[in-house]
């Protein structure tokens, strides 16, 4: 019973115990808030990428693209694990605005909105055509004109609250897009016959806000067929750059990707063996450049740095955890040193060394549990109100944690994950116990007569 009574009394009688509780609470508070926000940012970024690219991407690593994509799409659509498929053209071009100095290299993405919205969340990224995304390339101000959808950051400047000021109708802006069409062998299509560049004019019909900065600031969406012909990928044996796939609901992405990979291998092999003419052999060779990847693999170059950042944060907080253990160790060393008389008294009435260690371990457990509970409660309270606190700071002092005119984030992520809280809480309590074990054991092992000697009091 003394194992409970004594630690409980030490807890409320010793000011240093309160300080130890506060140290634990502060560490837990900091870890809960920062890890939740960091994890939220990464998860948000992942979700945005996943939603924007679909579950699996069959893509060519060459600008030339690959043929027979519609045959493969047909095959995919017959699979029960596939929900929707969309062919995509990826190219690089020059965008200019007639009558202005604007002239910039951009990523061009050709999509068929009717198919693409079934695979990705493209529809939700639109502003004017959100409710009628199939008409994304039909300007509301002139339905006869061919529209284009630039990334939002190419059209508007983000304001300090992270929003954009759209007008009621899209502005009638004409954009000139120039491409270098390539043959299936990778040569310029028009070389030696006039201009090697294909140019077409498009009209701003909507903009896309995916939340992925690089895409919103550098990508122009064009109608699939138009970009295909601009890039010289149309004709008798049309080519595409990629096929985006959405799997049936609940079907694991890894399994689906593996299935698509094996389907593709069989598909490519079939065309390779059937290729008789030289042009058919060229088309079959294009398939060698095709890779099948999950959305995560396809976007790894963008996601990896963020994951690395999170790993770094975890490492930093791991070190913080070690510092916490050290703080607890120092606090306990001080506390236990001042309790050496008590240890002598306890041992003089027959309490074993292990039981004395047990008293201080229970004490450390109390400190860990109370500190963790306070830290977690404060952390959760902070997270629940983090956005309103930031709003208040912005209104009052014009200060933001992340300048929304620079960073493409909306609200600060504050979704509390109980699994993460459990891990943090357990680690904090274990850190306290680890910090207490060494000084407790050292003190408990001292000779009774030494601890009770008058000059030790």
């Amino acid at each position, binding site marked *: 019973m003394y194992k409970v*009574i*004594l630690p409980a009394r030490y807890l409320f009688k010793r000011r240093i115990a309160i300080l130890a509780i506060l140290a634990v609470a502060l560490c837990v508070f900091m870890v809960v808030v920062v890890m939740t926000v960091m994890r939220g940012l990464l998860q948000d970024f992942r979700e945005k990428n996943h939603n924007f690219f679909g579950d699996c991407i069959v893509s060519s690593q060459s600008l030339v693209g690959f043929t027979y994509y519609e045959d493969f799409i047909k095959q995919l659509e017959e699979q029960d694990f596939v929900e929707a498929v969309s062919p995509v053209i990826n190219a690089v071009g020059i965008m200019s605005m007639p009558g202005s100095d604007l002239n910039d290299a951009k990523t061009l993405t050709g999509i068929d909105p009717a198919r693409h919205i079934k695979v990705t969340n493209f529809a939700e990224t639109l502003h004017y055509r959100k409710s009628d995304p199939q008409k994304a390339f039909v300007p509301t101000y002139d339905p006869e004109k061919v529209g284009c959808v630039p990334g939002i950051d190419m059209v508007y400047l983000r304001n300090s609250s992270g929003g954009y000021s759209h007008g009621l109708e899209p502005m009638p802006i004409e954009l000139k897009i120039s491409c270098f069409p390539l043959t299936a062998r990778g040569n310029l299509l028009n070389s030696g016959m006039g201009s090697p560049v294909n140019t077409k004019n498009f009209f701003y019909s909507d903009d896309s806000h995916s939340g992925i900065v690089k895409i919103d600031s550098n990508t122009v969406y064009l109608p699939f067929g138009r970009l295909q012909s601009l890039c010289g990928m149309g004709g008798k044996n049309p080519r595409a750059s990629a096929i985006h796939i959405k799997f049936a609901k609940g079907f694991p992405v890894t399994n689906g990707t593996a299935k698509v990979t094996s389907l593709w291998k069989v598909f490519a092999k079939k065309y390779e063996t059937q290729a008789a003419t030289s042009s058919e052999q060229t088309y079959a060779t294009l398939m060698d450049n095709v890779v099948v990847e999950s959305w995560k693999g396809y976007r790894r170059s963008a996601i990896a740095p963020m994951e690395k950042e999170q790993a770094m944060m975890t490492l930093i907080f791991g070190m913080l955890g070690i510092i916490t253990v050290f703080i607890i160790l120092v606090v306990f060393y001080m506390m236990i040193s001042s309790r050496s008389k008590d240890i002598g*008294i306890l041992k003089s009435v*027959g*309490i*074993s060394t292990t039981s004395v260690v047990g008293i201080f371990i229970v004490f450390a457990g109390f400190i860990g549990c109370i500190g963790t509970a306070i830290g977690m409660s404060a952390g959760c309270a902070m997270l629940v109100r983090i956005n309103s606190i930031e709003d208040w700071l912005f209104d009052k002092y014009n200060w933001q944690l992340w300048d929304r005119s620079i960073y493409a984030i909306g609200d600060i992520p504050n979704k509390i994950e109980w699994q993460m809280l459990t891990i943090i809480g357990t680690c904090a309590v274990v850190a306290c116990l680890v910090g207490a074990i060494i000084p407790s054991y050292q003190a408990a092992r001292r000779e009774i*007569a030494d601890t009770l000697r008058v000059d030790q009091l």
Partner: protein
Amino acid sequence: MSKLLNANGIHKSYPMGQTKLKVLKGLSLSIEKGEFVAIIGSSGSGKSTLLHILGALDKCDKGMVEFKGRDIETYSGAEFNRFRNLKVGFVFQFYHLLDELTMLENVLLPTMARAGTFGWISARKPAKKRGIELLDRMGLADRIKHKPYQLSGGERQRVAIARALMNDPELLLADEPTGNLDSATGVGILEALEAFNKQGQTIVMVTHDDRIAARADRTVRLADGKIVK
């Protein structure tokens, strides 16, 4: 009377810089059951060290302490704890009460240690009864919920005696129990010890005061690490 404790050829020294300070030099002592023995000696003569060795709070460098015929050096760790918990009770000059516990809790501590956390559930009621009885005998029935800092030195020493007797030990070792008290209070403590001795409690008391030692059945004088009388 049968022999309860026998110390034979006890040597004890403490490191002091490069040299060793020899405190006990081959001391031998025997305690009979029911005796009230006073060990007397000047300050630094090794009285407290001897008492600590007899009560297994310290170890001797050389020699042997037998309790009821068994060398306590042969005890295992658990047996040492049981010995301190059940066989001997200690009363210290500076009371050594736990400041965080009430008087009753301090008295109950040896029984709590014996019973363990779960055993305490069944042991609590009779232990509490005995604790209150002991405190009542010491004239502290109305102070059971007080903390040590709320009591006088004499009252604290009475609580320490009650704690030492809580598990009804065969041997009570008192290290200058009146050394920190005024003479009137000291007399009260001695009277309490005498009363317990009359009921058969074996007591070994250390003191430097001849008048206090005179109240014991037998006086053992310690000088230069040896018994001289």
